[in-house]
């Protein structure tokens, strides 16, 4: 290519590690997240192998407890929360709003370094001997009884939290201040609405996690503290503070996924998203109401019945905007012109899996059933349907969709579709049996279990093997395409978004001339012929 793009402006290491270019920072994040995804995935694999038999045969209980804790901590804080916002969001947000960078580029770089510092501290905790508290760090186990590296791990998460806050802050200000002329709020792509909502949660919930972990670590360090039942402290207060962050964090993880799905569904059915304004406001509604429901993690903990009642009601309320979104995506397909490219396959898989995840969520929001189902595999299956079936699937969809823009190359459509289908089946085989296990009463975090649960566990482990292979596939075909793929045109999907108006990959400051927006988003030209991509 004659024109220089952001990848070819400079090749030194320094130009990467001191860059303030949001696109390069997105790539830095992307590389780090792949690493953490496979660390967390390795733990998951070990867990599933161990659970294939009811006895303890692969690892001891202590190792097992460290495995699921590491899986949780790595996956939640070092993969799911930063996944879409920090890679796709970082890359796409300025492009989508027609800006030359985020509002605070140096803060953006700093956020990556803070993230990596947090990641290294956490990895150190794991390598030094691990943590066995579960990702929830419940007191008093974490403060008084656990003999593992709790403070180090909490410090890692604490540090990574600041990275989240900085990213959220950057997105909020960027979306407010750096929109191209003519790009009003109702002309924003829905991906940006959902990232905005995500950022609100990041900024307002993460500090509560920080203070909670700080209180927990102080208590552990000094042997006495605010949650200590020996001096009249209440362990439930820890749970309240923890879930004030961690429940909204669930929406941090799923909202960006929903945002991506809007883009994919509308692009590949060549139609504007049905009920644009409803979907946009639903993102904000989820972000706001998502703060009112945290107590549904505590229906059997001994919190007051009145509190349970309020939290259960709110949990049903927060399900309404999610339901609205699913209906709107479906309605978007109506009278569209649907193309089944790989990103669309991921989007359809998302809708199905997310719906199952959401419906199992209703079971758990329902007070009396939650008494039975909480702390069983029902919960495990539920949140994996949302987090993995929803978020990771959406992430893959978005990654394929914007891959030509990010790398300037086209991937192999054949392999991409195969991987999408394989992920869908592997996922369901892994997690549907867990719904049944939960309904039958198998508690979570069990290293050994009564033999009558074995059938479903074996199925789940078998599915996990398929899923592991399916998740490895993109590493190869996307990796291959990044270097040897066919060159991508500026707009391979014939999409109207601003990010497609600049070359692929974009130049260093995104746009040669300041773009001006004159129309609503998603004005698709119906007769789009997909590029022949089977390179």
């Amino acid at each position, binding site marked *: 290519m004659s024109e220089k793009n952001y990848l070819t402006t400079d090749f030194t290491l320094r130009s990467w590690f001191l860059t303030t270019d949001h696109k390069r920072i997105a790539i830095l994040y992307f590389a780090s997240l792949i690493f953490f995804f496979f660390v967390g995935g390795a733990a998951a694999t070990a867990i599933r192998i161990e659970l294939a038999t009811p006895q303890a045969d692969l690892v001891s209980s202590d190792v097992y407890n460290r495995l699921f804790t590491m899986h949780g901590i790595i996956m939640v804080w070092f993969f799911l929360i930063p996944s879409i916002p920090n890679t796709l969001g970082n890359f796409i947000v*300025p492009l989508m709003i027609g*800006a*030359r*960078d*985020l*509002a*605070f*580029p140096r803060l953006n770089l700093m956020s990556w370094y803070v993230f990596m510092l947090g990641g290294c501290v956490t990895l150190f905790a794991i390598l030094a001997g691990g943590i066995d508290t579960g990702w929830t760090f419940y007191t008093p186990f974490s403060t008084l009884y656990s003999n593992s590296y709790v403070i180090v791990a909490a410090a890692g998460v604490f540090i990574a939290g600041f990275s989240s*806050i900085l990213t*959220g*802050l*950057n997105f*909020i*200000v960027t979306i*407010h*201040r*750096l929109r191209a002329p003519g790009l009003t709020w109702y002309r924003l792509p829905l991906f940006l609405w959902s990232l905005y909502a995500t950022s609100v949660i990041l*900024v*307002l*919930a*993460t*500090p*509560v996690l*920080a*203070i*909670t972990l*700080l*209180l927990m670590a*102080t208590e552990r*360090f*000094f*042997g*006495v*503290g*605010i949650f200590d039942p020996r*001096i*009249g*402290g*209440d362990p439930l*207060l820890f749970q*309240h*503070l923890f879930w*004030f962050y961690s429940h909204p964090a669930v929406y941090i993880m799923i909202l960006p996924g929903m945002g991506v799905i809007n883009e994919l569904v509308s692009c590949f059915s060549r139609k504007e998203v049905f009920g644009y304004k409803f979907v946009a406001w639903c993102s904000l509604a989820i972000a706001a109401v998502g703060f009112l429901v945290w107590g549904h993690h505590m229906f059997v903990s001994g919190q007051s019945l009145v509190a349970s009642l309020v939290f259960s009601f709110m949990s049903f309320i927060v399900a309404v905007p999610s339901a609205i979104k699913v209906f709107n995506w479906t309605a978007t397909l109506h009278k569209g012109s649907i193309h089944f490219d790989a990103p669309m396959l991921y989007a359809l898989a998302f809708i199905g899996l997310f719906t199952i995840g959401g419906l199992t969520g209703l079971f758990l929001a329902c007070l009396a059933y939650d008494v039975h189902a909480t702390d069983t595999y029902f919960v495990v299956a539920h949140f994996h349907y949302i987090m993995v079936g929803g978020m990771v699937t959406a992430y893959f969809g978005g990654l394929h969709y914007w891959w030509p823009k990010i790398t300037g190359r086209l991937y192999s459509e054949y392999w991409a579709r195969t991987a999408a289908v394989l992920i869908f089946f592997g996922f369901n085989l892994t997690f549907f049996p867990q719904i049944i296990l939960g309904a039958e009463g198998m508690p979570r975090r069990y290293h050994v279990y009564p033999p009558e649960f074995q059938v479903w566990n074996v199925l789940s482990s078998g599915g996990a093997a398929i899923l592991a292979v399916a998740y490895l596939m993109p590493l190869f075909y996307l990796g291959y395409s990044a270097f040897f793929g066919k060159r991508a045109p500026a707009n391979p999907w014939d999409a109207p978004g601003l990010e497609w108006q600049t070359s692929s990959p974009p130049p*260093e*400051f995104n746009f040669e001339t300041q773009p001006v927006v004159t129309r609503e988003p998603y004005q698709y030209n119906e007769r789009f012929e997909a590029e022949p991509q089977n390179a």
Partner: protein
Amino acid sequence: MPESSAVAPQYASIPHRDHTAELGMWVFIATEVLLFGGLILAYLVYRHAFPQGFAAGSRHTEIVIGTANTAVLLTSSFLVAWAVEIFSPATSKIVTWLLVGAACLGLVFIALKALEYSGEYDEHLVPGINFQFAGPKANGVQLFFIFYFIATAIHALHMLIGIGLLITLAIICRRASTKRHHTALHSAALYWHFVDVVWIFLFALIYLPGRSTS
């Protein structure tokens, strides 16, 4: 990189940059509110559970130091607000002195705080290190002092960061004060006022309860 222009490439103009920076600062303050919010919830819950213990704990704090510190901090905030208000290249000298004054008041606050801590250490009121409190309210008092030390320590940390910011800005104003530093000063001032507001509430929660009874 084609730097060296007056504003970074993502901004259209200087006012655009300044407004963006200010908005960023407000978002940051919202974050900070929730950081202290977690502590305040813990305080409210335990004050509800141990009203007597919290009153007793509060009576063991030094209200003279607390009140003096509040006055010091309010005055320092006033000086900073004054500096922001009159900031211009022409007044850089006064601004510098105002900022130095505010930072010095901040240091006075820290010194008084240290004095108070050492007094509490001598009275064996530091939970986890040497807490000794006989009597029925011991649990409540201990919980109160755990809150007290964590909240004031985090606040003091914020103070130290703020003092650093003020001194940096004072140096900048002394050396080369230009219009563009107004934004930096304004952001630092917002932060300093916020730390002040936090203290106003901590003062009401820590020093005032239980004074009317004994």
